[in-house]
């Protein structure tokens, strides 16, 4: 039955049926074969969405959209350019740093790549950077959106695995900064090799002025992460605080939001939220089938009897994530695999918070590996280039991701040190 399910799923997907509907329909077909009460289906879809922690997703999506449209990302980039734009490779470094700051406010990688890329790709190309490199850099650095908290995949992981979302968020910070640092180092190296010059040096007075302007946006990551770390607010609450803070900053201080922006902002947030919610609903049906057919138990028993060690486990799991990541996006992969993997993690004594970060770095690669890579679509869209060109630009970066992935797997403390310091 499970093989039948996967076969139907893959056929539907290849025939260009949206992934969420392929997943839902293939599960429903198999459920009819095992005398399942189909009336449970819509209720199950509804219950899957009916969770207060899940409401952090629309919150952080909306905050990200407002940020990109309300001038906050523009002023952040302006200030970063004033400080490091004149160095060799400065613009590439600005791109990475801006992605990191944006990632600390938004929970989505495509949103990060879109917000920073729409400004920085033209800027880098004007300064003489190779366009393929500029596009690849934005697609790669944009994936930090889901590793540096807040993060939509980590919210979904937390709800599915019943782990504290706050702790998962904290676990992503150090690996996120390391990955950002590796990208910065590679950018400086690349610029030195190709002899890219920076722009003119900005005088101190102007730097101060730009920073003062950007400080309102730069305060937001501290507000979000601080409120979660201290336990003062849940991720959902901090998401809506971020929404209203960015509305106030965009309307009152930057004066860049008008009434005519309201409809596009809401529709853009709905596009992303509803797409994710439909996948959540569809995947919950799939999980229902898995539990019914006792697949997690079977896999768990198989692993237990095969005496697999942790090394082989990580090797197999990472390969599986990589292959799935080429044609699925992050939310589906997490919701499909996690119910099967959780009992295995428990059996092998692997900390689920540490595993979440390993998984998230894999999901970052999923965003930049064709044929389905959300960041590739976004970058190809904003730079009006063929998908293949973006793929060429981004491929060298995969090696850096694998390097950081290995580091995070070998040193669990990189992800566990911060969450273990939380009081609650």
């Amino acid at each position, binding site marked *: 039955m499970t093989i039948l399910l996967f076969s139907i799923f893959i056929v539907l997907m290849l025939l260009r049926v949206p992934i969420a509907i392929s997943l839902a329909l293939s599960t429903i077909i198999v459920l009819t074969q095992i005398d399942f009460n189909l009336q449970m289906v819509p209720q199950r879809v*509804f219950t899957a969405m009916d969770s207060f922690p899940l409401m952090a997703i629309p919150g952080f999506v909306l905050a990200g959209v407002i940020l990109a449209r309300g001038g906050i990302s523009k002023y952040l980039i302006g200030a970063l350019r004033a400080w490091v734009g004149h160095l060799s490779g400065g613009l590439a470094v600005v791109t990475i740093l801006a992605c990191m700051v944006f990632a600390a406010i938004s929970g989505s990688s495509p949103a990060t790549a879109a917000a920073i890329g729409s400004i920085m790709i033209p800027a880098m190309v004007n300064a003489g950077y190779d366009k393929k490199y500029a596009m690849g850099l934005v697609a790669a650095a944009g994936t930090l959106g889901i590793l540096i908290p807040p993060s939509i995949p980590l919210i979904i992981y937390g709800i599915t695995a019943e782990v504290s979302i706050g702790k998962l968020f904290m676990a992503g910070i150090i690996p996120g900064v390391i990955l950002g640092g590796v990208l910065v180092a590679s950018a400086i190296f690349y610029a030195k090799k190709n002899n890219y010059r920076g722009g003119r040096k900005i005088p101190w007075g102007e730097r101060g002025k730009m920073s003062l302007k950007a400080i309102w946006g730069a305060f937001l990551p501290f507000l979000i992460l601080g409120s979660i770390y201290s336990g003062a607010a849940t991720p959902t609450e901090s998401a809506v605080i971020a929404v209203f803070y960015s509305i106030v900053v965009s309307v009152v201080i930057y004066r860049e939001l008008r009434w005519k922006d309201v409809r596009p902002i809401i529709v853009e947030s709905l596009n992303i939220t509803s*797409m994710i919610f439909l996948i959540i609903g569809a995947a919950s049906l799939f999980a229902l089938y898995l539990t019914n057919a006792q697949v997690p138990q079977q896999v768990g028993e198989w692993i237990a009897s095969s005496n697999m060690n942790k090394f082989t486990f990580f090797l197999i799991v990472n390969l599986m994530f990589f292959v799935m990541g080429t044609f699925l996006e992050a939310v589906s992969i997490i919701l499909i695999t996690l119910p099967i993997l959780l009992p295995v993690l428990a059996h092998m004594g692997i900390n689920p918070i540490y595993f979440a970060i390993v998984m998230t770095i894999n999901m970052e690669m999923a965003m930049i590996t064709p044929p*389905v890579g959300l960041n590739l679509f976004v970058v190809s869209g904003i730079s009006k280039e063929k998908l293949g060109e973006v793929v060429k630009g981004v491929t060298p970066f995969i090696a850096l991701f694998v390097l950081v992935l290995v580091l995070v797997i070998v040193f669990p403390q990189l992800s566990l040190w911060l969450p273990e310091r939380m009081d609650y």
Partner: protein
Amino acid sequence: MKKVKTYWALFEDISAGTFFSVGITLIFYGVVMRYVFNDPKPWVEEVSRYAVIWGAMLGIPIALRNNHHIQVDMLYEKLPAYMRRWVDIFASSVGILFCLFYTYYGFMLVYKRYSSGMVSMDVGVPMWIIYLILPISGVMFLLRFTERLADVWRGKEVSHDNPVI
């Protein structure tokens, strides 16, 4: 027909947008009441949750209108044009099939909850009203897939490519 489509899109946006914004605003209201006025409102969590879900479910057809439901183009891109048309027709028909199923069983659920008189946990709203969103969004989703099927059937040049923000 074009005018009808414009107004229908507006209707979709307003209905989904209202529930969505009200839900988010209510969560914020709950935060303000709890932390600033030290007067937590227990009804807020449930009402805001249902409002956001209503908004997100009404947004599913909007996301289809804007090509935001992710699909795999791997095979499609390699097909000749006449095969692509049949694949498009197939994919839209599968979408319609899903919507019919979802609407029918959604309606059955509403009917069952209506007869049993079950109410929500905190506020006591009848559950059949809350579940009404299932058949409603199902029909609206169905309309968008039907539009898509009509477009590809007539061989209209419409792009259904993956999302670009």
